């Protein structure tokens, strides 16, 4: 039991998990347990935010391997506009459009990966310019919001299976399962090593460029899927909808406990980080709703709500940085203590 607790405390997602549980509890209090845990509420929370959760995960993968990509947000829109426009303007079947959507994101990610890993362009530079390139591309493909998808798709996406299981949660589970598999392969170790120290990983015989490239490709696929979820959710196309997500994913990853400098974290960090972000927003808007109902004449704009939730996130970020520092210290102390104890036992 003590060992288990120690394992949990030293896990990278520890602070993320605690923060997430705290904000979850607050949400439950604000909304009352019955309403918060109702199938409809859970479904709408997951379904509405799945794109953000997914791209936070791809950002997490990238950050663990020591790179970062702000263009994950615009990639979601790219996937979205391709998925709508190919069937609409070329008259091709929908599945062709959807495949092309994912392929488009993979191509963008691959290109990004190529210029950062093989041409050695600094990561921030390349991904920042990629944001503008892809944004331009999106508007070229679809100048203004439009389009629709067959009802069966968005109805399925919004459905609740067996009375409690949101369909969208299945997609999330699939990605998590994929990570569970990946985590147990040699590739994961190579990924952490590459993120931790490129030179050391290389001198251990790891083809670091190939590892980075593969991470970019996986991220591209996930971004594509996130775009498809967005399409199913909104049932239309919007060339600019995904942009705001780009920076949020980085904040979410850090909140979850993934290190900015790479080599530390797991995908559960990304998950907790994203959920934290989502629940904060959700909680704040519910709180304001409650206030405006409770206090006659009280009303605030969306901007105030955003301001409040962003402020909370800023506080959480600061807290994360501090607790991580303190935690590393306490882990070290604990390790020292164990080491000393070991020596005494022998003597």
């Amino acid at each position, binding site marked *: 039991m003590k060992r288990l607790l120690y394992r949990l405390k030293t896990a990278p997602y520890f602070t993320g998990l605690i923060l997430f549980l705290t904000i979850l509890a607050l949400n439950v209090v604000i909304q009352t347990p019955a309403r918060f845990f109702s199938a409809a509420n859970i479904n709408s929370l997951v379904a509405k935010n799945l794109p953000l959760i997914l791209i936070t995960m791809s950002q997490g993968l990238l950050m663990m391997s020591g790179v970062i990509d702000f263009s994950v947000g615009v990639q979601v829109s790219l996937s979205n506009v391709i998925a709508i426009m190919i069937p609409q303007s070329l008259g091709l079947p929908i599945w062709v459009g959807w495949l092309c959507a994912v392929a488009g994101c993979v191509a963008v990610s691959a290109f990004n990966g190529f210029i950062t890993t093989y041409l050695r362009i600094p990561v921030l530079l390349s991904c920042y310019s990629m944001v503008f390139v892809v944004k331009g591309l999106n508007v070229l493909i679809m100048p203004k919001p439009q389009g629709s998808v067959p009802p069966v798709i968005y109805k399925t996406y919004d459905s609740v299976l067996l009375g409690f299981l949101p369909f969208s949660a299945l997609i999330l589970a699939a990605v998590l399962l994929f990570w569970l598999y990946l985590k147990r*392969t*040699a590739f994961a170790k190579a990924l952490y090593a590459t993120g931790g120290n490129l030179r*050391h990983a290389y001198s251990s*015989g790891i083809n670091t460029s190939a590892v980075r490239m593969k991470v970019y490709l996986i991220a591209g696929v996930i971004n594509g899927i996130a775009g498809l979820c967005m399409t199913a959710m909104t049932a239309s196309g919007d060339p600019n909808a995904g942009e705001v997500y780009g920076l949020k994913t980085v904040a979410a990853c850090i909140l979850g406990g993934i*290190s900015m400098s790479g080599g530390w974290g797991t995908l559960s960090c990304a998950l907790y980080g994203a959920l934290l972000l989502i629940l904060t927003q959700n909680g704040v808007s519910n709180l304001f709703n409650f206030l405006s109902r409770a206090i006659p004449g009280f009303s605030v704009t969306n901007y105030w709500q955003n301001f409040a939730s962003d402020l909370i996130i800023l506080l959480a970020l600061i807290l994360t940085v501090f607790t991580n520092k303190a935690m590393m210290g306490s882990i070290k102390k604990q*390790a020292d203590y164990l080491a000393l104890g070991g020596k005494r036992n022998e003597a």
Partner: protein
Amino acid sequence: MFEMRSIVKHFGSVKALNGACLSVKPGEIRALLGSNGSGKSTIVKIMGGIVRANAGELLMDGVPIRIESAADSRSFGFAVAYQELSLLPQMSVIDNIMLGHEYTRRGGLLDEKRRRESVRGLLERLEIKCSPDALVQNISPSEQSMVEVAKALSREPKFLLLDEVTASLHHDEVESLFRVLREEKAKGVSILIVTHRMNEIYQVCDSATIFRNGATAAEGPMSRFPLNEVIYHMTGTRVKEEAAAAPRSTAKGQDALLRVEHLTMKPKVSDISLHVDKGEIVGIGGLEGQGQAEYMKAIFGDLTPDAGEMWFEGRQLRLKDTSQAVKRGISYISGDRTKESVFSLRTIEENLTAGDAALGGVWSWVSAKKIRKMAGDAVERYQIKIGAITDSASSLSGGNQQKLAIARGIAVGPKLLLLNDPTKGVDINSRNEIHKILRDSSAEGMGVLLVSSDTEELLGICSRIYVFYEGRVVAELSGDQRTEENIVRAMIGGAPEGREEAGT
């Protein structure tokens, strides 16, 4: 048999290797010797595939080969333990050792059981005490070095290259390492050892190659190279055998420079008192991690003790931070250069003069000309091998980086010099030079407190030696009690022979 012929490598204007030759036969342990910056690490890196030679030939059993990448090097059977280590601090010991050659099962999944078993076996064989699941950042520097060796060994190499791995190892760790090396040698593995600890090479090596300025100066069986021969080939000049004067205290007694009483810092240091007189070199011995580093840092004001008092020059010493210590005339040099002593991205010049800058206020004026002159003098005095004085410190060889730190510490002319394993990875010649400088400065009244893992170094220059064990002083040796035997016995917790000494 593997051979390298007339290898040339330059980094910008610096010629690291200039026609060096090297060969290793199966089943032999060869020493690669040379002063700091003579190109030893560079040639090892070429074999490891992380540096590419500008010219030269590599022959494997007479057939020319090319090593273009670390993966190539591995496929030819090379495994390297690097001087600056190639470990990932955030990963566990198992992950580090198995990195790059994982055991997998069906479907690409890792074979956890086999990984764990093989790592357990290796750790046991090398007598490494740390847990396989510990993160590398949480284990001690000497354990890290051993893990680096384990990592190389786990690849079951035909050619095992060890670049100064013993520099941070202690007596018994070196013993178990050498036992393993002899076993490997019996299996027909070729082993190349780079080291500056001369007694080690006579223990295990069959033959030696000696580098001077990036070229091979001599090569042959160990029997041809007694110590003075080795030094001759390393430096190119014959030095007169200078009978090393037995260290004797120039202290006038009662004149204590530093007096520490009952210093306690849980859990590493419990109740240690000691004193350093003016003009005295006092040594602290002991296995690694017995509280020496913490003790030194407490004196320097880097750590705050739980209890205890310190007097410096008769006045009580209460330090809030290290800059106050520097102002009172205390200087600290650490052997852990990557973490504590070298600003690796800054220039050599800035590294040398940073200590001096700390003497003034943060905004005080520093003249560029004066700095250049100071830095130039230091480079000459300590024989630091550099390209240009404005190169970054990371371009220097390991030993030369260490000399930077020492030069900086002494340059400020402190009254008390705290040294924590300062000559780690410094070649024998420069080490003698540094010892001489220490003796000279102490004759002028500077007090020196020296922590060293090298017993010879302690015996060579210290007039009094305290031995630490589990955060306590188990022996205070002076006069003719200072023998290797007494130190080693005290290091493992035993009391010295003869008169009972200041104990618990």
